[in-house]
């Protein structure tokens, strides 16, 4: 059974539709990522699900119980939905233990034991229970916020860009930790983020939001390799787009004839490749596709800029700095896998 069902949810602020007719199902025990550029309505969607605001139209059901529909609005405190927001929103007047225990009821028998368990689960030392939030680092605050939201064993956990205020190295660690904790607890989760890599690596299912509309939802692989719009294709990763003429299973383009998933299409169109499908091989001037005209060094990888003879704008390919050919080298492309037609 689905834990969360959204049907035609709409929310407007003035003339702006922050969330526009969104329908989505989240299966029990899964992790769904809602991803979209800043301002696309992700936070608004979460706020509607959590019950902080009512939708203008549409229906929200959690575990089969309708929590928002025309006339029916279950207030946030009766929804049993956990929320972790970008900055943690810890209560500054309570200790860490007080924060974690906030939702438990003051006299719950196993309160202290639960708090200790949760501190363990989010890998915080027990001694931290007595500290105030202002003495904690950003990562520690997020761990406390997660423990606090888990304490009530919510039916559904909503995470609003919980990692975006952390530095890059910490982000990986936190993401793995959160995924493990949520799996252990078997909590159905919706994560909202503008970081496509985060969405693709964290979730079982990804939904792309654009200007308040849900443009595509599916497995991470599905979205990455089979986007149904240029926006999704470009948002989920870098693309190399090339004009091409489709002839059967081949596309004739600036890189020569390459394999393509044509799905029955033919004629002139635009195909795309992910940059990691391209390999650069130094070659002789005669059978080269183009020439290296520049290179951007970024430590382990470099972005190599290749000018193609016939094409006005050059191609950019990221590759290992070890293999990056110097400027002026004539090069040839080897294409791995198949190109796809840009919808």
């Amino acid at each position, binding site marked *: 059974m689905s834990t969360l069902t959204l049907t035609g949810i709409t929310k407007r602020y003035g003339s702006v539709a922050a969330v526009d007719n969104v329908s989505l199902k989240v299966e029990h025990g899964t992790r769904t990522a809602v991803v979209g550029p800043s301002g696309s309505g992700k936070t608004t969607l979460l706020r509607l699900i959590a019950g902080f605001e009512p939708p203008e139209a549409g229906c929200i059901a959690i575990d089969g119980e309708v929590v928002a529909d025309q006339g029916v609005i279950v207030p946030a405190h009766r929804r049993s939905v956990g929320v972790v*927001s970008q900055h943690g929103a810890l209560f500054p007047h309570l200790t860490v233990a007080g924060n974690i225990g906030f*939702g438990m009821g003051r006299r719950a028998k196993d309160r202290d034991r639960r708090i200790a368990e949760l501190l363990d689960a989010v890998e915080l030392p027990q001694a931290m229970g007595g500290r105030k939030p202002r003495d904690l680092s950003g990562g520690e605050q997020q761990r406390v916020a997660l423990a606090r939201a888990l304490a009530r064993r919510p039916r559904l956990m909503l995470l609003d860009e919980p990692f975006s205020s952390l530095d890059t190295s910490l982000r990986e660690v936190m993401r793995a930790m959160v995924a493990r904790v949520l799996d252990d607890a078997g909590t159905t989760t919706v994560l909202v983020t503008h970081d496509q890599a985060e969405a693709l690596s964290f979730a079982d299912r990804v939904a792309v939001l654009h200007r308040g509309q849900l443009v595509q939802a599916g497995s991470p692989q599905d979205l990455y390799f089979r986007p149904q719009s240029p926006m999704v294709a470009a948002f989920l990763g870098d693309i190399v787009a090339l004009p091409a003429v489709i002839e059967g299973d081949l596309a004739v383009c600036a890189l020569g004839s390459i394999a393509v998933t044509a799905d029955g299409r033919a004629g002139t169109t635009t195909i795309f490749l992910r940059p990691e499908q391209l390999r650069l091989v130094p070659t002789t001037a005669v059978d080269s596709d183009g020439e290296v005209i520049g290179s951007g060094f970024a430590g382990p990888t470099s972005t190599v800029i290749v000018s193609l003879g016939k094409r006005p704008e050059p191609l950019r390919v990221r590759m290992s700095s070890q293999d990056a050919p110097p400027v002026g080298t004539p090069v040839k492309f080897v294409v791995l896998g198949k190109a796809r037609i840009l919808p």
Partner: protein
Amino acid sequence: MTSFAVAVSLLALLPFGFIIWETLTTGWETAVSLIFRRRVGELLINTLLLEALAIPLCCAIAVALAWLTERSDLPGARFWAWLGVAPLAVPAFVQSYAWVSMFPGIHGLGGGVLVSVVTYFPFVYLPVAAQLRQLDPAIEDAASALGLGPWAVFFRAVLPQLRLAIVGGALLVGLHLLAEYGLFAMIRFDTFTTAIVDQFQSTFNGVAANMLADVLVLCCLGLLLLEGRARGDGGYARVGGGSARAAMRKQLGVWLLPALALLVMICCLSLGIPVITLYRWLAAGGVAIWDFDALGGALGQTLVLSLAGAALTTLAAMPLAWLSVRAPGRLHRLLEACHYYLGALPGVVIALALVTIAVRVALPLYQTAANLLFAYVLLFLPRALVSIRASIAQAPVELEWTSASLGRSPMATIWTVTLRLAAPGIFAGMALVGMGITTELTATLLLAPTGVHTLATRFWSLTSELDYAAAAPYAVMMVVWSLPLTFLLYMQSRRVAGR
């Protein structure tokens, strides 16, 4: 909650509605004959001259003082900053009592301007000093780099940025000048407020007093409009990110001595004279003036009234403040604006309205503590609103949501999260109101039931009998009471700036 806020606002509109009602029912002829007469003309000229002289002087002194304490290498700047605020601890009528004691000949416009300036300049000093601390020194650097000399930098780059603070402070001074009774009565300078109180006390001539109140309210309105004009189109945002670096202090060099002389003179006038006078009266009066029964009684009654008034005012302000922070709709903006204007109503107008309403409509309320407390609530509501609003804004709404998602009901959330976080600010606001009530004179004089004597009214009746020595202990107690208030105001302005 909304209905409670609306009810409070309607009650707060009562005196204003009363004034309009009175004016409409008085009849054109009577109104004209009562308003367009020589006496009103004289009062109007007095008032205008007082405002026109005292406000600019206050501003000039305050800006000079603020610059010296915040931006120059003046030795002991912190100490001088304190002295710039300390005059607030001396109630206006105590200040004027001190001056009359020392210079018995003081009277009229000159005296009025002199005493008002030394009493009220801190109202401008506080916001200007706070603003100066906040200014981004990069703007001054840019001005110097564009070839402006130090004076030109001050007048063309610094002063314009202080405009909002100066105008805001000046409005406060102007409204106090209009509303003050004790200060001007003591040195025999007639303003609308003194005339209304005299009229009321001598003949209980409701209509004449009410017509004077009309003109007084119009003056306040004029001041508010003027302020709106002078304020310009709002603030000056800091350009660019990052926090402002602390400003360099300018070296005074040869100006040090004149600067110190100015400061010493201001301090002597605003603090020296009250301190010396009080000391002299206490020394001259000896033990005889410490009538502990009367003192204790007045202190007790003052305490009860202040606590009750502060609690009631805070309670009345709370829903409105909460709504205006959390649900800033059109209705709430209207209510807020309404309280902003009501905040300008002088105490004497509110008192007059409540007395007349009690006499005519609700006689059992006449001369009761309830009526007096109601007046206090109306008088101090706008101020309480400002400080409670600010403290509720300190508790981010995100925390309320989080609390709801953790299963707390809305009421429990407000109680355990919002109010818990806003509590320090709310208590500060309550203390401000309470201490304001302690030294309130005008409304208390008109409304206090027989047998109720506060420190201020006791002091006032003693000075009216020219028993200045016996009044001194009351003055001392009011000053001591007001010191924490002053400290609070000082700390608040620091905190706002240190944000």
